[in-house]
Every structure is written in structure tokens, then in C-alpha cells.
């Protein structure tokens, strides 16, 4: 077991801005613990094996710096729950400062 605590889950939930109930803290700490255990198998890989974040053997895939059409503003805002003055409207951000 890798000892994922209820506090760890609460912390992760806060980072992800998710509301988690008291019962869920127990459920998720057990589940995440199992996931971390499974993934920890990568720790058995010898150090001389290079990390693989990319499986496609390509490098320097670059785009020319030329303008392409953007979305019409109405289209961009169409999926927003709320919009105002051409901008996306979001609930107020509590206890945080830019």
C-alpha cells in the first residue's frame, strides 16, 4: 500500500476544484492508493532506460508563423454557460488573487 490519506485526497480535490464528500474521501483514498500501487511498478525499471514521454520518433515539428482564421466570436462564445460584452462570464473567484 502506498498510504494515500484522506488529507491527500482532500488536497487533490481542492487543486482540481472538486467538491468531495466525507464518504468519498474514504472511497477515493482506497482507490487512488490502488492506482498508485499499480503505477509504482515503473519504479522497478532500471535507471539506464531513458524515459518515454514520446512514442513517435519525430523532432522539430514546427509550424510557419502565418495567421490562420480564428473562430467568429459568436461561435467561440456559443458553448459558454454565460457571456457578457463579448467575454466569457465566470463565477467570482473566492479567496484568490491573480
Amino acid at each position, binding site marked *: 500500500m502506498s498510504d494515500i490519506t484522506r488529507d491527500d485526497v482532500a488536497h487533490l480535490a481542492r487543486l*482540481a476544484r472538486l467538491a468531495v464528500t466525507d464518504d468519498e474521501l474514504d472511497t477515493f483514498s482506497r482507490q487512488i492508493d490502488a492506482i498508485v500501487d499499480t503505477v509504482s511498478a515503473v519504479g522497478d525499471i532500471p535507471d539506464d532506460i531513458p524515459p518515454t514521454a514520446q512514442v513517435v520518433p519525430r523532432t522539430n*515539428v514546427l509550424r510557419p508563423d502565418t495567421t490562420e482564421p480564428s473562430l467568429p*466570436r459568436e461561435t467561440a462564445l456559443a458553448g459558454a454557460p454565460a457571456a457578457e460584452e463579448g467575454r466569457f462570464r465566470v*463565477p467570482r473567484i473566492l479567496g484568490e488573487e*491573480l
Partner: protein
Amino acid sequence: MTAVSTPGVESAPYTVEEVCEQFDPVMGLEVHVELNTETKMFCGCANAFGAEPNTHVCPVCLGLPGSLPRLNGTAVESAIKIGLALNCQVRERSGFARKNYFYPDMPKNFQISQYEDPIVFDGYLDVPLDDGTTWRVEIERAHMEEDTGKSLHVGGATGRIHGADYSLLDYNRSGVPLIEIVTKPIIGAGVRAPEVARAYVTALRDVLRGLGVSDVRMDQGSMRCDANVSLMPKGATEFGTRTETKNVNSLRSVERAVRYEMGRHAGVLLSGGTIRQETRHFDEQSGTTSPGRPKETFADYRFFPEPDLPPLEPSRDWVETLRAALPERPWERRARIQTDWGLSDEELRDLVNADALDLVADTVDAGAPPEAARSWWVSYLSQQANAAGVALTGLAITPAQLARVIALVEEGTLTNKLARQVVDGVLAGEGEPDDVVTGRGLAVVSDESALAAAVDEALAAQPAVAEKIRAGKTKAAGAIVGAVMKATRGQADAARVQELVLERCQ
């Protein structure tokens, strides 16, 4: 000297001199620079300042599901150029990472940045200080990332986030290419720390402007500085707890923010308190800082490799080609220009302060003598710019146009007075200098036969005066010269007219 620390109230800052009697300051400066590429970092939306909200957005920079980033080649080139100009090494293989945090200005909920393998690293910048010495600032790294959108907080008393009812988001800036340049800890600057901070950001701005990779407008946010400051007891080697003052928006503010934080830290430490590691806001009005949002700790960002962008492996050829094309360093160029043009330190400083150096240099490159070019930009054109309330660079006359006006003066087609009228015409949008000369009929009348005819006409019109001159009263010639100047609308050379009058009356 007593330090009063009341909870919630800033203790009066100590002066830098008082601070440095007991502490050594350590600084780390992080400068974000928006590149002036045509398009954003990972999509083809225009990178433009001041457009209507959400008109330069697409699925990629809005973070819509299924969209994939495509890296801007010019942005990579700019990043390498910046690294080379800062004497950095270019990493043979670098890649991108996701920095995870939830905030409405970043719709993907992660920022694509570089983490363990920034494209350039380990450099330095030799920064000129006011007293003529230089201070070497070591560069830790410079990496590529993307800018965030802009929030507008609605409601609440101050328009700030506290007390706001809701926020409005404009994603035009989301995905604009950013380079973050991070210094190594700057140690040992002592009382000069605030000055070194300002001088570094100034030098960096000049270098970046010289490279032409960014507008470097601090007032518009295309260059932003975060200043990390900590104090350690004099002679100590272990750094104190630092604070990070965000988004300091002018060169002067960089100096003030560092000075204020040094004084504040000393106040807290000397009264037995401890410094909390936090981000702080600089207030331009009061010159003070206040606590910002509680930030995620570093581990909370859960960096991991960006799977959607293949790694970068800049070829040696590419890097060396870029290195060979690097421009002269701005202060080296200034020193060369000072010698070439024979300027005093004061004259050079005036040019730099007036933002006129490039304009004068371009005017000289267009063929004008340095002295004339300098004089036009720092006197007449500066006056016009002040009167119009625009920057010198914002005047509607190009260095090439001014060089043409100066050439017209040199060849005798214009007097200085007429030249000013030609410049006025160019500024008023009447076309090229030659068009204004023709349009306003401003050329000096240097056609001898035309002048002679005008003189004869004036003598004939005033026979009594002509008689006096013939009788040897040469002072009377002034009346005839005046008449000729009037007839030619001031466009004759008065001295030459005088000679002609006397010749005709011999």
C-alpha cells in the same frame, strides 16, 4: 530605531542602508516577455494587442476538447536568439511540459511550459550600472511557454478581485508566445540591490529590443517582471525565506519594489517575526506591496511531459546561423556611436533618454550628417512631439524623410526656416519632403536672373530709394531687400539680395 509590527498593518520599511547594516539581500528576477510573432505559440490565431475581446481565439487557445497544439517555428527561433544574446547554452534536446492549475484565465486547466529541459540555460548578462561599472547577472534559464487570458472583475468597490461579483474573460492573449527569463540568485549587491534589479531589467529590455523579438512594452504588459527578494543575516550563506512580488510594470517600479520588500522583510525579521513565502502585489501608487493569492506549492503543479508536442533538437547549423546574425549589444553600439559622432556623455544620455538614438542613427544611415540629424530630433521634432502629445517614434516623419530635408538644406534649396515648414508639411501628411517643397512653393529662390529681375522691379517701384543708394547711402538698400524678400515670400537668400541691390546701383 524600533520596528513596530502590528498584525495586518505594514511596519514602516527600513531604508536600504539600514537593512544592509544587518542583512545581505538576495534577489531572483523572473522576466516574462511576450514575443512579437505574427501568431500565437501553438495555433495560427493572430498575436495582436488591443483587439476586440475573443476575436483572436480558436479551439486550441480556448482549450476545446480534441484540439492539438502546433508549435510556432519563429517563436522557437526567437527563444534561441534570446538565449544566445544572454550567453546561454542551447539544449540539444528540449521539450514541453504541462503545468497544472485551475484558474479561469487558462481554459485548458494547464499551461504548456518547459520544466526540466528549458531550451536555453546557463548564461549571463553584463549589466551597465549608473556609475559606469558593470554587474554580471547570471542567467539560470530561459524557457518557452504560453500567456494566459485576461480577466475583468465586475462588481466590488475597487474593480479588483476582492468583492467582485463575477469575472469576464477575454482569451485573445491566451496562447501568446512567452519567454520566461530566470536569473540565478543575485548575491552581494547590498545597498545596490534595487539599482542592480532596475539596471538588469533595463539592459534585458534593450537587448530584447535590439533583437527585435518583442515590443518590450512594460506599460502594455509585453514585458513583466517578478522580483524575488529575501534577506539573510550579514555573512550568512543560507538564504532567508523569499517573497515574490508579481507583475511590476515599470523599470522604476522594479527598483521601488525591491527596495520596499527589503525594508519590509527587515521590519518583520527585526521585530522577531518570520517572513511567509508568498506572492505579493506591487502598488504603483503607494510604492508598497500586499499579499497576493496563496499559490500552489511547486509539487501541486504536477508537471508532466506534454504528450502532444514532439521534442526540439535545434541543429548546430541553425544555432550557429542565428548566433552569427546577432546584433551588436545596445550599450556597445551606443559606445561606438558616441565615438563615431563625437558626442559628449551628456549628449548621448539626452539622445537615449529622448528615445532618439535609433531615429538619429537611421537618419545618419540615410545620409544625413550626425550633428544635423541629432539637432533635428532632439530640438525641433522633440518640441513637435511634445506639442502633439506623442512619442518621438510616433511622429509622422521617417528618418529617411528627415535626411532628405537635411540634404535640401545642405544643397541650398532650403533655409533652416523653410526646412521647418517642410517638416511641418510632412508631419501634416502633405507627402514626401519634395512634394511639400513643391506644394507649398518653399524652395529658396536661387535663380540669379529671377532674383535680379525682382531687384530691378523693386528699384523701379521705389525710385527715391534707388537714388539714395546710388548716391552712396548703402543703408537704404534694406528697404529694397525687404521688398524683394516680400515679393519672393521669404524664399530668397537675403544676403545675396543685398549684394545684388548694391551691384545694380553702382
